[in-house]
């Protein structure tokens, strides 16, 4: 005891800087102790949660499968189904269990189609999960809103699109993206109307997602892409060029050719690729005449187009560009020349090989 007092006395008399150092050390020590205790709690908690989660998950999976195969032939619920619904309903009151129920439903929902998929959607409504998803849309946190929209998308809840649309101008791009995906998932091409008014840039990531969703939808009724090709938003134009490719939009030929003179290089390159995919021969002649004025990227895109639509009359044009200073272009020219397969080709090939070594 005496010693402690002595140390304290000593500390009082030492310089303020030492006092500060000891003081900080004390604080650090307390924080470290608290963090270590927290860590212990956290690790146990996580481990327990994981165990419980797998347990519940297995339980719900079995429930789900039994439910799906216990149906009556008419559309009514069988007794067994009703009892599973009741059982699950008691579970979803607890947020932790609810999350697992939803994820179990989704785990299957995302992989299948047809009747069974529909009965999962029905089960989602029966269980009253819809109101929880809708409650998420009213949350203040943007990530909760996004998750809510995602759930509505995955369970194909069409009826609430007005509520979802409220987020069209949400400040967070993640929320806007979820909303776009909701529209496309459920309304396919009709959902693309948001492109008319889109002012922000549609990132490549967004574009890929939208295209993939459209493809899964398998809808034969394709929207008219022409207005979007004229959009002042370059990213919308590029996205529509991709649509033109995937859905073979020959109708948009004139709009496409006009885009060859777009201000954006990126748009021009993508236009050439789309024209090439659609085999629009007029474009070839246009591009051939002003080849030299175009950027390397465009030239490469054009030569890739030519690979599919070359004619022997292109020989002169190709020979002219055999000595192009860009390697990739040179290589493409040689490839096409090889395919045209005329008598003198071996001679040019050996010339080319020499130029490679040089």
């Amino acid at each position, binding site marked *: 005891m005496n010693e402690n007092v002595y140390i304290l006395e000593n500390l009082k008399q030492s310089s303020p800087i030492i006092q500060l150092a000891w003081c900080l050390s004390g604080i650090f020590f307390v924080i470290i102790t608290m963090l270590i205790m927290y860590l212990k709690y956290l690790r146990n908690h996580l481990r327990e949660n994981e165990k419980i989660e797998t347990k519940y998950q297995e339980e719900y*999976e*079995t429930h*789900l*499968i039994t439910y*799906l*195969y216990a149906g009556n032939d008419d559309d009514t619920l069988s007794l067994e189904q009703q009892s599973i619904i009741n059982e699950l309903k008691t579970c979803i009151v607890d947020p932790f269990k609810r999350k697992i129920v939803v994820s*179990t439903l989704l*785990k*299957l929902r*995302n*992989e*299948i*189609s*047809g*009747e*069974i*998929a529909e009965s999962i959607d029905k089960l989602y409504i029966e269980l009253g999960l819809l109101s929880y998803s809708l409650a998420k849309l009213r949350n203040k946190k943007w990530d909760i809103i996004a998750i809510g929209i995602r759930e509505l998308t995955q369970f194909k809840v069409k009826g609430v699109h007005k509520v979802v649309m409220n987020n069209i101008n949400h400040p967070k791009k993640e929320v806007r993206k979820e909303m776009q995906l909701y529209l496309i998932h459920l309304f396919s091409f009709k959902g693309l109307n948001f492109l008319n008014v889109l002012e922000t840039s549609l990132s490549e990531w967004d574009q890929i997602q939208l295209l*993939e969703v459209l*493809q*899964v939808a398998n809808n034969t009724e394709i929207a008219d892409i022409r207005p979007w090709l004229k959009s002042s938003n370059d990213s919308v134009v590029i996205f529509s060029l991709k649509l033109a490719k995937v859905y073979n939009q020959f109708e948009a030929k004139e709009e496409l050719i006009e885009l060859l003179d777009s201000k954006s290089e990126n748009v021009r390159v993508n236009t050439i690729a789309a024209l090439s995919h659609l085999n629009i021969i007029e474009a070839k002649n246009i591009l051939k005449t002003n080849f030299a004025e175009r950027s390397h990227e465009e030239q490469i895109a054009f030569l890739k187009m030519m690979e599919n639509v070359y004619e022997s009359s292109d020989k002169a044009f190709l020979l002219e560009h055999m000595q192009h200073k860009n390697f990739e272009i040179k290589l493409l020219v040689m490839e096409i020349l090889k395919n045209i397969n005329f008598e003198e080709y071996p001679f040019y090939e050996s010339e080319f090989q020499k130029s490679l070594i040089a």
Partner: protein
Amino acid sequence: MGNSKKIVLAEDNSVLSLLLKFRLEKEGYELLIAIDGKQAIELIEEHKPELILTDIMMPFVSGLEVISHVRNKLNLQTPIIVFSSAGQEEIVLKAFDLGATDFMSKPLSPHELVIRVKRLLI
């Protein structure tokens, strides 16, 4: 049901494989479930099934390798149906190159699957 036809199903989504197992067992087949390609190969070697259903994207050994193993290493002509996600045309083509018999794209309809299985196992 001692001589019911055996089917190996390789699928990493546990609910989906449970669903398909129930459905196909109802039709009188015997189902062996693998959660990855490696297990699938082991089951195939051990049980010599009449039909193989495999997902393409799986942990450890992909569906493509399962096909390749069955056709080239085991030299078996067992019919194989592959599941692929929509838009994976390239991979599906590769699967056919390697000797797949049929393919179904995900999300898949269990009803349609039963029809295809029946057709292959007459």
